């Protein structure tokens, strides 16, 4: 491995409420040849990570943020995504740093942060990988270890950073190789020894969790209660992470729906708010297409759980629980039957979109299933047509199982800003909207404008609460809707070199990261509103400049005579100085 090229392409998520810092950090990280995504709000960052945790290697976050304490974010990330997190602050007091370490930060940087500090952050990623290897060594599976060892040696730098966790790798095996994410596909899969979480096993797990009480639960207690030989604490711990993640996602979706974001219709059931989704599901035909396994034996327990859950939700509508038997169907069940759409509400819904009316039901259904699954990662979504597993798999399975009381991981009382909803209709180069072609694109068009789109995104609809803002065709423009915080929280992958992304010049976009990675042929592109170029000189008050009389008198002249003053300042080499300047 070439040591100097090693951390190239490290995928970093930067979270900071200060737009100035966000911009600076982004620039610095890009200079380190990292792939940067910026985010102005912790809550949105969490959403992004939940949606596509496998797409990031490391997170850098400020400590002081308005919507969520940085330490809390740190905790969540550690619990749910297990990514290395670096904290930053202008405040370098020992107590603060200590707090960071205690909460699990792998480093604590003081602002102003310097390039050299950022260059080195890859070590935290690498260190974590090494720890994962060691953990695997503690497991029985020699085969896995062998694969892992081979995998490590065979990796190029990019592959190394593609490996986030075993689940990611498992999904990757099934991923369509054409997926534009360009993941390591040369067989260097790295996986931990995995326990197969069968329905029964998961049921025992959930029973144990319920028995202990969700608030007090811990991997050790669960392990003891479950009393399964061969099951390790690590297995339970990672399973617990996912479970929590899944539940929080479900609850969030439910809340979204309840808060009236639903443009979806319960049409075939009537649109009463008291619609009991549970019963509606039971009545539906069994050909709702998603990957959930059969879990009908749990229906009864679920019903009980749902009832107890009702008090926790803010309305009488219970959590939608896909509790029925399902089989994979690739052709269209009537999309109306997918009242899972009701849970989507404001999440990801194409159906209410003004664009693309001819969407095939199968496509719609898939998308809805995708969102319906809560945190079901896009990878799994991609597996859909080939997908044929019978055991519980990642988050998809938990939906069929009872849920204990859940404390929403995001600060309670954090009432509900719907996450940024970006539905995009993508057309492939050749305009076909065939299902298999559209699928990878649609997957990526979930919440962020993924750089990996192979299609040219030709329109964007942003669904916000009750309003839908549609962009124009031809260009990918974002019209922000005033007063809706969600669009302000949009985060964008910054490495898009293919898309023609141009947000409209909208001063109310605060905290929204700039699409600073615009291709260089968009000069003078106004970001964050004000472009100074246009301000008339007379607007300035020069009375302060007693010592710059030259400037004042010089205003009469044309400053732009010397257009040929070529100037480039790379970071490490200063430009040649035109001798005329100093004549």
């Amino acid at each position, binding site marked *: 491995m070439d040591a100097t090229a090693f951390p190239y392409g490290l995928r970093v998520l930067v979270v900071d*409420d*200060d*737009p*100035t*810092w966000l*911009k*600076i950090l982004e*620039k*610095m990280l890009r*200079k380190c040849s990292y792939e940067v995504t910026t985010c102005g709000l912790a809550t949105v960052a969490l959403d992004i990570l939940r949606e596509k945790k496998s797409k990031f290697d490391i997170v850098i976050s*400020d400590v*002081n943020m308005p919507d969520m304490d940085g330490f809390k974010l740190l905790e969540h990330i550690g619990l749910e995504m297990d990514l290395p997190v670096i904290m930053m*602050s*202008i*405040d370098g007091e020992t107590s603060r740093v200590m707090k960071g370490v205690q909460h699990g930060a792998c480093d604590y940087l003081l*602002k*102003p942060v*310097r*390039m050299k500090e950022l260059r080195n952050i890859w070590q935290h990623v690498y260190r974590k990988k090494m720890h994962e290897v060691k953990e695997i060594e503690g497991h029985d599976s020699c085969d896995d270890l062998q694969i892992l060892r081979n995998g490590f040696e065979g990796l190029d730098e990019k592959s190394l950073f593609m490996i986030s966790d075993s689940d990611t790798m498992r999904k990757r095996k099934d991923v369509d190789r054409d997926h534009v994410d360009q993941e390591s596909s040369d067989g260097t899969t790295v996986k931990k020894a995995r326990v197969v979480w069968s329905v029964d096993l998961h049921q025992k797990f959930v029973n144990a969790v319920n028995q202990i009480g969700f608030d007090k639960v811990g991997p050790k207690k669960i392990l003891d209660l479950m009393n399964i030989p061969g099951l390790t604490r690590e297995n339970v711990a990672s399973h617990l992470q996912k479970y929590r993640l899944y539940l929080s996602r479900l609850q969030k979706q439910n809340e979204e729906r309840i808060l009236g974001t639903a443009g979806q219709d319960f049409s075939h059931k009537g649109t009463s708010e008291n619609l009991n989704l549970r019963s509606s599901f039971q009545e539906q035909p069994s050909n709702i297409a998603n990957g959930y396994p059969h879990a009908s034996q749990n229906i009864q327990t679920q019903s009980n759980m749902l009832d107890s859950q009702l008090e926790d939700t803010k309305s009488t509508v219970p959590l939608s629980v896909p509790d029925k038997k399902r089989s994979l169907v690739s052709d269209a069940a009537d999309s109306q039957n997918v009242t899972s759409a009701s849970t989507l509400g404001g999440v990801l819904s194409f159906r209410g979109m003004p664009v693309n009316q001819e969407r095939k039901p199968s496509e719609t259904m898939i998308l809805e299933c995708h969102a319906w699954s809560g945190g079901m990662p896009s990878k799994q979504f991609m597996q859909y047509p080939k997908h044929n597993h019978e055991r519980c798999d990642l988050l998809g399975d938990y939906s069929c199982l009872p849920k204990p009381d859940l404390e929403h991981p995001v600060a309670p009382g954090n009432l509900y800003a719907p996450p940024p909803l970006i539905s995009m209709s993508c057309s492939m180069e050749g305009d076909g909207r065939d299902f298999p072609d559209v699928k990878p694109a649609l997957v990526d068009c979930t919440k962020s404008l993924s750089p990996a789109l192979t299609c040219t995104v030709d329109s964007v609809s942003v669904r916000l609460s009750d309003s839908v803002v549609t962009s124009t065709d031809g260009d990918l423009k974002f019209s922000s809707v005033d007063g809706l915080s969600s669009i302000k929280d949009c985060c964008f992958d910054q490495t898009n070199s293919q898309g023609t992304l141009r947000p409209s010049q909208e001063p109310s976009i605060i905290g929204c990261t700039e699409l600073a990675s615009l291709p*260089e042929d968009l000069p*003078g592109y106004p*970001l*964050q*509103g*004000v472009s*100074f*170029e246009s*301000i008339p*000189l007379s607007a*300035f*008050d*020069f009375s*302060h*400049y007693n*010592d*710059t009389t*030259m*400037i004042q008198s*010089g*205003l009469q*002249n044309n*400053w*732009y*005579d*010397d*257009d040929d*003053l070529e*100037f*480039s*300042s*790379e*970071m490490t080499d*200063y*430009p040649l*100085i*035109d001798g*005329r*300047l*100093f*004549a």
Partner: protein
Amino acid sequence: MAAALTNQLHALVNNMFATGLLDDQFQQLQMLQDSSAPDFVSEVVTLFCDDGERIIGELARQLDKPNVDFDRVDSFAHQLKGSSASVGAQQVKNTCIQFREFCQQRSRDGCLKTLDLVRTEFYDLRNKFQVMLQVLPNVLKIHLTLSIEFH
């Protein structure tokens, strides 16, 4: 003509460094600017100016209340401190540190006085930035590079 102007501008910026208005962080920003982001400094400074103004407004609002929530004031002062540190606005940053001390002491008078001070300093800095960037962007770029060399 341009040369003389450059010298004057050079003097202006040097003066800002010399009087402690700006610190090394500003030079770091200059160094980050490159052909892929030719307006980087300008953009960052603009962000700072807008954000700084917003925060000062918040500070004033908070201190205007009959019952001042000093924790909130402190939080805004902290924000301004962070923001000013990002562009190397050293003087403003130091005033923010003072500000926070008054917040700790729950001194409304102290806070109000410091607010006035920080406001004045901020607007002064902002004006200078605006002149630099608006009036002489091209020359500025060259100049700023030079100032790195000469420092």
